[in-house]
Each structure stands twice: as C-alpha cells, then as structure tokens.
C-alpha cells in the first residue's frame, strides 16, 4: 500500500506554536497543506515548510454563508478556509480531499480492545479505499477516541451520521461548508438529506484536544466569550426538521435525529473489484522511546 491518494488540508489560526495535527501527520510520513491567513504567514513559515503553506484567499471569508445576520462582527470559524481547501483540491483535479482541525493530538487504530497510535500512512489509505468501494458515499472520517471506549465491542463504523473535525469529502458534492458554528453537523445533514451516505470509522480514530482547551482556533474567537448556546441554536435554525433544542443543567444543547437517514442505502461500485481484501501495513510493535506528538 502507499500513501493516501487525496490531498490533506489543515486550516490553522493562531496555533503555530502547537501545530498538533501537523506533527501527528509528520510522524505518519504524510504530505499536507496548512491554510493560514496572510497576517500569520510568517509565524507559520518559521515552523512549517513553506511549500506546505497556502494563504487563504480572503474572498472566501467575505462571501462565506454564516447562516446568521451578524456579518463580519464575529469570527466566521474555519468554514471559509475549508471551502478554500475544497476548491483548491478541485483545481488540482482531485476527486476527493481531506480537511481536518489543527488540534488533533494523534491518530489511532482501535483493534483488540486497544486504541494504539498509528504511524503508518495506510491509516488514511484504508479509510479512502473503503469509502471508495461505494458509489454513493459523500463523506467519511475517523471518530473521536473518547467515543470508542476500549472495553466495548463497537462496530468498526457508524453509518449515516455526522462526520466531524477530520473529513474525507467527495469534491463533486453540490454543497459547501456554511454556518458560523456547527458547520460539521450542517454539512453532514446537507449531504445525508440529499440521500448520500456517510461513514464514521470506529476502527480509525482521532485523538482530539477538547475544543476549548487549546488556545487559538475558535477558542479565542467565540466559544470563550459566549459559551455554546448560539452554536446549538444555529443547527436547529438551519435544519429544524431533524434538530431540536433542549435545555439541560442550565445550558442549551442540540439533539439531531440521525435515525431518519438509516434508509440511505449503500451501493457498491460496479466498476471496481472490491472483493479482494487489500493488504495494509498495520504492524503492532512495542516502542520504548516515546517522542511523539502526545509528549508536547
């Protein structure tokens, strides 16, 4: 097996000192692009190979559909940079692309009741290959480590649900990222409502820092100032048919009913021979000297 077939993009803002996802990908020997705003280019260029840096075209920020009426008063989150990534991938004739958050500490494989860090690029290739077995999957990605308890016998994946923080996206979907908050859920629902399928892998996991624990990104921009109430309200406003708002423990929460998408049936591609089991390089070893991203 080889590296992933499709480009990886990491929008990043104010986190050049941590570069967490980038370090995790470096350990796996992956190529990737980091999308930064012009004013932070020099900060990032001091720690990342300039060939990996893309400067965000600010038109994406100006024209971004925030799904509210607050205009430029508040941060628009990562959505504009994610749309920039999408179009960049299309302009390079790629059929799919990966886009992921910049605060992912490690990528892990969940097998035999252990969640072990992965340093092989086949991590990505396996998800890509499996996704491409179907003609009607629009998006896939790894689940969060904390949603896959080691002691539980989990299915290797959850189908037709939300894909978050690390998304493998089919480029010819008619949708784009939108929403000032909760853009992962909004896009997932856009895709599912259009009868596409999604795959959230439990075997392949992302160890994500708690959203508001790392400085930079959306933390400083809005969560730290206003809590998460607007975030929950937005998803209900954009997709009222499947999302509802609930107040528990003095906080607003949103609940999305993904059961309605169980009817989205998977279709195997007829133009590939997918029966043969691919051979991925997943060798489990003991590593005594630990110097990886989790030591940061």
């Amino acid at each position, binding site marked *: 097996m080889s590296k992933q077939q499709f480009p990886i993009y990491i929008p990043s803002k104010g986190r050049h000192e941590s570069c967490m996802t980038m370090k995790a990908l470096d350990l796996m020997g992956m190529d990737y692009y980091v999308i930064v705003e012009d004013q932070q280019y020099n900060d990032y260029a001091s720690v990342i190979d300039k060939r990996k840096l893309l400067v965000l075209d600010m038109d994406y920020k100006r024209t971004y559909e925030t799904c509210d009426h607050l205009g430029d008063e508040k941060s628009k989150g990562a959505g504009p940079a994610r749309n920039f990534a999408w179009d960049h991938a299309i302009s390079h004739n790629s059929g799919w692309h990966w886009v992921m958050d910049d605060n992912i500490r490690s990528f892990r*494989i*969940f*097998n*035999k*009741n*252990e*969640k*072990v*860090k*992965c*340093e*092989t690029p086949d*991590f990505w290739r*396996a998800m890509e*290959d*499996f996704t491409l*077995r*179907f*003609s*009607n999957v629009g998006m896939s990605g790894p689940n969060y480590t904390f949603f896959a308890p*080691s*002691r*539980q*016998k*989990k*299915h*290797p*994946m959850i*189908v037709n649900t939300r894909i978050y923080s690390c998304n493998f996206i*089919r480029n*010819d*979907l*008619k949708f784009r990222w939108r929403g000032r908050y909760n853009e992962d859920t909004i896009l997932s629902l856009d895709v599912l409502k259009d*009868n*596409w*399928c999604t*795959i959230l892998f439990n*075997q392949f996991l992302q160890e994500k820092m708690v959203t508001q624990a790392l400085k930079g990104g959306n933390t400083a921009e809005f969560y730290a100032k206003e809590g998460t109430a607007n975030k929950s309200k937005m998803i209900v406003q954009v997709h009222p048919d499947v999302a509802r708002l609930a107040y528990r423990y003095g906080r607003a929460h949103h609940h999305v009913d993904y059961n309605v998408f169980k009817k989205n*049936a*998977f*279709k*195997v*591609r*007829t133009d590939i021979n*997918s*029966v043969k*089991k*691919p051979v*991925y*390089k*997943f*060798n*489990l*070893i*003991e*590593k*005594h000297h*630990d110097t990886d991203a*989790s030591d940061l």
Partner: protein
Amino acid sequence: MIKLAIKYKKTADLVPYANNSRLHDETQLGQLVASINEFGFTNPVLLDGANGIIAGHGRVMAANVLGLETVPTIELQHLTNEQKAAYVIADNKLAQNAKWDDEILRLELQSLSDADYDLSILGFDEASLSRLLDVAETADAFEEYNQAIEYENKNAGPYKSLIVHFENEQDVDNFKHLIKQNFSNSAKYIYHPLQIRKETESKRYV
C-alpha cells in the same frame, strides 16, 4: 384565454429584467448552450411587450454565446407590471418545486445510456448521474467492511456492576480495607479485583 403567438426577434434587442433574482453561473450556461445545440431553441423567451425579458434570461445568454441572431419569443403585454415582476420569479420557482420519480428517471437515463446518448447535456452533474445510474444491489456496508479490513473487538465490560452505598466516611475506609484497594473520593467506579488500565503509549502501529 389569450392566444399566444410566437414571433422571432433579434437577440440583441432583448433587454434583461433589471431585478431578475435568478443567477446563471458558467456551469449552467454551458448546459443551456449544449441543450440548444442538441435540441434547438425550443422554449420561446417571454417578453413584456417592450422587448423586456420576463422569462428566458439564461436562454438568451446562451443564444448570445452561440451567436444566434434571432430567437423565438412570446409577448405577454397583457400582464400588469406586478404580474410581470411576479412571473419572473414564479416561472423559475414553480419548475423548481417539481420532484423526480427517481426510479423512472433512473430507467430513462439507463435506456439513454445504453443507446450511447450523451447524458452530459441533460443538466445533471456527474455525481448525480453516477448515483442515479448505479444499478448495483444495495450493499451491506458491514459485510463489505469484513471483506476489507481486519477488525476484532470483544465486549470487555464488567460481568456485573452494583452500586454500594456508604453511610459515613468510616464505612468507606472499612470497605477500602476489606477489598485492599485505595480509591479517591472522586472515583465513580472501581474494579474488583483491581485492574490496571491497559497501557498503549508504548505501542505503535507502523
């Protein structure tokens, strides 16, 4: 009912409605051009009696791209100004509200595809076409997974769990002594016998 007459008019003389809210991007314009090339200009442009376009802005743009000097038109001068403004919107929106019978559509597309007809001029993007034309049986995604990637997990949860209540701190201490474990005040659960959390930090998939 007013009888409508089709009259060919110079494309250059037609004036777009200044407040037309319908957008025609390059992709859709290309689709219209391809459609007119294949089928001809079969859908007359609707005019307001003074060469102002009510419906057919995209088709006129396509006619300009193709260099068509004249296009078929129908005059709707009997409409009031409000009716004309409303029709500019309704002509687009009402068509948009119709739904497809996906099964019949798929059969029709398949039939055209079998006849080597160029489906790209129908106005569907590639993703939609590939989805509509896919005739494979619905797959069991989990069975597919079994064929693709090795994965093995078992239920490793407790055999039995029970809640133990303590009336005072002394009872807690006595219990710790009894089971030979020292758990913190914030502990929500323990295992008996004591289980050490599996250490995975020294392991790697490479």
